[in-house]
């Protein structure tokens, strides 16, 4: 991948993004880092997965990352967003995903982690985020994704989990965070992803949802998350991966979307922002690169649309017993 001069808008400046991520990782005491201290585990997953997609995972110290991850684990088995914080299902998934990237799942006490996650399932099939009981279909996805990677899906009631997700299906074909909640691309990704991983996509009306999703593409080529909202690079992941999982991605203009993502790059300093000319961050850098992967942009490894990890990582886990 050659790095582009600022006159070439149509190129992915991969090397600059790699440098941006590595520098951000080191700046632990910047204001941004300190404010986001509690979700460093998510940040690490976004940064490291992006590096792997650009085939640069080798530029970080695997041992350093792995030992830091383990300092975030609680006696309950769950992982916190950073050392000292409380455990939560959000960070438990990110921790497991990072270990999968490094093929180090074997260092975990799988029984302990899976029991923590399985213990968060409620009577109605839904999942709480932690012991304080917030319920959201994001957590259903997280539990199913996490346990599937750990090959412990049988520890939960999958049928009830699916039933709860289906109860969050709306009349526009989309899904919300709880029954009756408005369809939102992020929640749709979570619900469709969970249904995909559990072989339950027959519950999705693919044509109805496909139309709602393809109408997220605005005149700019970028995608929004709900009707009449602004486009944002992160929806290049959530809308796009959902469309791919239900085999309706051909209903959007892929070239126009790729151009929108590339226009959101900071060509000088690296990193990708939510919209062109906005400030960059790791979150949008990851979703931009992941989106380009789904669009088959050259030089980016293939990413799995349901697990949000490279295909080679998931195939390795799924097809070897």
């Amino acid at each position: 991948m050659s790095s582009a001069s600022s006159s070439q808008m149509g190129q992915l400046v991969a090397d600059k993004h790699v440098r941006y991520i590595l520098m951000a990782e080191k700046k632990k005491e910047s204001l941004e880092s300190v404010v986001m201290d509690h979700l460093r585990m998510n940040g690490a997953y976004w940064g490291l997965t992006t590096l792997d997609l650009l085939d640069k995972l080798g530029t970080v110290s695997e041992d350093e990352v792995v030992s830091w991850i383990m300092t975030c684990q609680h006696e309950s088995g769950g992982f916190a967003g950073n050392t000292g914080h409380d455990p939560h299902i959000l960070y438990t998934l990110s921790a497991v995903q990072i270990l999968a990237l490094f093929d180090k799942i074997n260092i975990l006490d799988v029984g302990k982690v899976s029991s923590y996650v399985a213990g968060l399932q409620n009577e109605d099939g839904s999942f709480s985020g932690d012991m304080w009981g917030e319920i959201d279909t994001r957590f259903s996805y997280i539990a199913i994704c996490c346990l599937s990677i750990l090959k412990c899906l049988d520890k939960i009631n999958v049928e009830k989990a699916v039933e709860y997700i289906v109860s969050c299906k709306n009349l526009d074909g989309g899904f919300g965070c709880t029954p009756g909640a408005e369809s939102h691309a992020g929640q749709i990704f979570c619900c469709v992803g969970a249904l995909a991983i559990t072989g339950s996509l027959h519950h999705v009306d693919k044509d109805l949802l496909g139309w709602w999703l393809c109408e997220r593409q605005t005149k700019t080529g970028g995608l929004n998350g709900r009707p009449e909202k602004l486009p944002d690079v992160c929806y290049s992941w959530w809308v796009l991966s959902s469309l791919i999982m239900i085999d309706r991605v051909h209903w959007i203009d892929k070239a126009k979307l790729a151009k929108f993502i590339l226009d959101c790059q900071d060509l000088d300093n690296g990193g990708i922002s939510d919209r062109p000319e906005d400030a960059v961050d790791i979150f949008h850098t990851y979703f931009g690169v992941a989106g380009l992967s789904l669009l088959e942009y050259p030089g980016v490894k293939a990413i799995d649309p349901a697990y949000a990890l490279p295909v080679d990582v998931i195939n390795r886990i799924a097809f070897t017993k």
Partner: protein
Amino acid sequence: MHGRPRKASKPEDEAASAAKAVKLRSLQSQFMTYHHEKIYTKEAIELSTKLLEINPEAYTAWNYRKLAVEDSLSRIGPDPNLVKPILDEELRVVENALKQNFKSYGAWHHRKWVLSKGHSSTGNELKLLDKFQKLDSRNFHAWNYRRFVVELTNRSEQDELQYTDDMINNNFSNYSAWHNRSVLLSSLLANRADGFMPEKRIPDEFEIVHQAIFTDPDDQSGWFYHLWLLDQTVNVESPLLTSSWPSHGSSVILSGAGCLNGPPSNVTTFCSETGSFPLILYFDQAVGGVSPLTVTIDSELKGNENLVWEPISNKSSQVSCVWVARLKYFSSQPCGSKDHKVKVRLGNSPGIVSSRGYNFSAPYEFVFTVHVQDTAEDSHSQESIVSWTDGFELWDAQSKDLNSLFTLDQLNNGIDLKWRQAAIDSEIECFRLLADSKIGKLTLARLLMASEAMTLDAAVKGVYYEEILQLYNDLMALDSSHHQYYKNEHSVAFLHKVTSSSESLSRHLFRYRDMNNLVCLRLNKLSLSRIASVEKLLFVQMLDLSHNELHSTEGLEAMQLLSCLNLSHNRIRSFSALDSLRHVKQLKVLDVSHNHIGKHSVDTTRYLCSSPLSNSDWSQDGVRGQNPGLVTKYWDAYFVLRDLNLKQLDIAGNEIADDEFSSFVLQVVPKLVWLNGQKPGN
């Protein structure tokens, strides 16, 4: 993280940031100490208040506050005068946090947690919500919280419906309000609440949503609500039988495996190695509960006492639009040639239920004739290669055999269509006025399709198809980003048109002489990007879809009689896209040559294919003996081909089809006789 302009930071800003960072870091450290040592003094709690004011996303601080509240409550006892100030303080902290970030999950959840302890007036909550609506009418956290409060206080659905009325009248461009309205209205309609009968209410709602769509046709807020109303108008709640095979009044010759070399016939001949034929029921929506208790079969065919009905769907589903039972027809004694009438009845006993919980209730019966023909065992089996170009005869359109094959007549389901047809006609008139806009054309096309579907009168059936196809052509030009969506809809309308009359369908029907006049449907070179109308094509035994733009076989699973399929020169990207063919047990001949298999790194049917990836196929039989590296590399080819009983396969002209892959195929399908037109080993 969102909506901040990109700008180079000046040294003064950097210094200020650094100072803030140090302060925040010190607050965080102090907080952590209090939290880990379980210190809940006034001072400690105030520190957490400060922390959350700066950073409402610090979730551990919200957890700490809950522990602090529980600690306080445990020490002061149940006196409401003492409890209230503590909880009120929590609500104040939440409100401050929301001022900083009204999308903070932690803040909203903390409020719900406090409220669930009682002591807060819900009048306050609704006032708070009104404030947030004004700030951002699309804030889904606020709408969710509203639903939480409504449930807590038992506010009526009618009152909440009125609230959506107010929101929409204030500003029609409020998708969140339309969404909420759809939830409330569908519940009121389903419960047949007072004043909520569909035949009156739906037309009223059409009027209301017109204002949104016609005021600004580019604003999407009303589009999906309108589509939902259309669905409520067109689709009846209770499931209906759309078609069956064999169909009412048809006749079929049933024979053994050697019959393909037997004397030619003008009537459908079904040959089976297993001595059974598929009885197919095709419903208009997914149903469960099809069984010998709910479907009765009267016939003289022996051996069908314990009939098993299978839903044609993936393994974890108990519901499907398509159900199949395999009726045995060979008894142990040869019985010579004989005609048997078979009568199928359903809807007499309850049990067939749609996935939304509505019963199949209209009793229905159909009768067909089978002629069982003995065949001598033929020692040289029909291993001759099937050609797609030679040996075909056009079907005689005048021949009444066409009608003996299938009926295109709509099953008379006795539903009340009047208000529905009137509503559609009225909508068609309205949307003709918006025919210059994208949503106008798209809605009109959908309305015309709906009208066609409801038309039972053969004289007027089919009048709208030309207009529908033109509208989709217009849309492809007008809204090029969604070109493929309109292309798909165009293909669907085109196939509906082809199958709308015997005359148009017969132009595509042929007989394949070399295989005892198998019924062949040719739909090649039609730019088809999507398969449709399968419910009218259940009788087809050979299907030519070559030279089209198909990328998946979605829909073909119902074609249980299909033994030969030609998909060459299409846009198939992977074997996972052929997953639906695993249900077509009769399939012997498959041509997927000159497609795109192996060309793309992204597999769009990866999760629509049963495999360990979607936790839906674990059977390890046959994996031993395969090279595990190759099974992982060609996982979808492995799982799909393993379940097919192919004799003839063509894969040439695909990037994947190198020597390694070809020899892998021969290992997975050992009974294959022809690969790429050659006998393997040549």
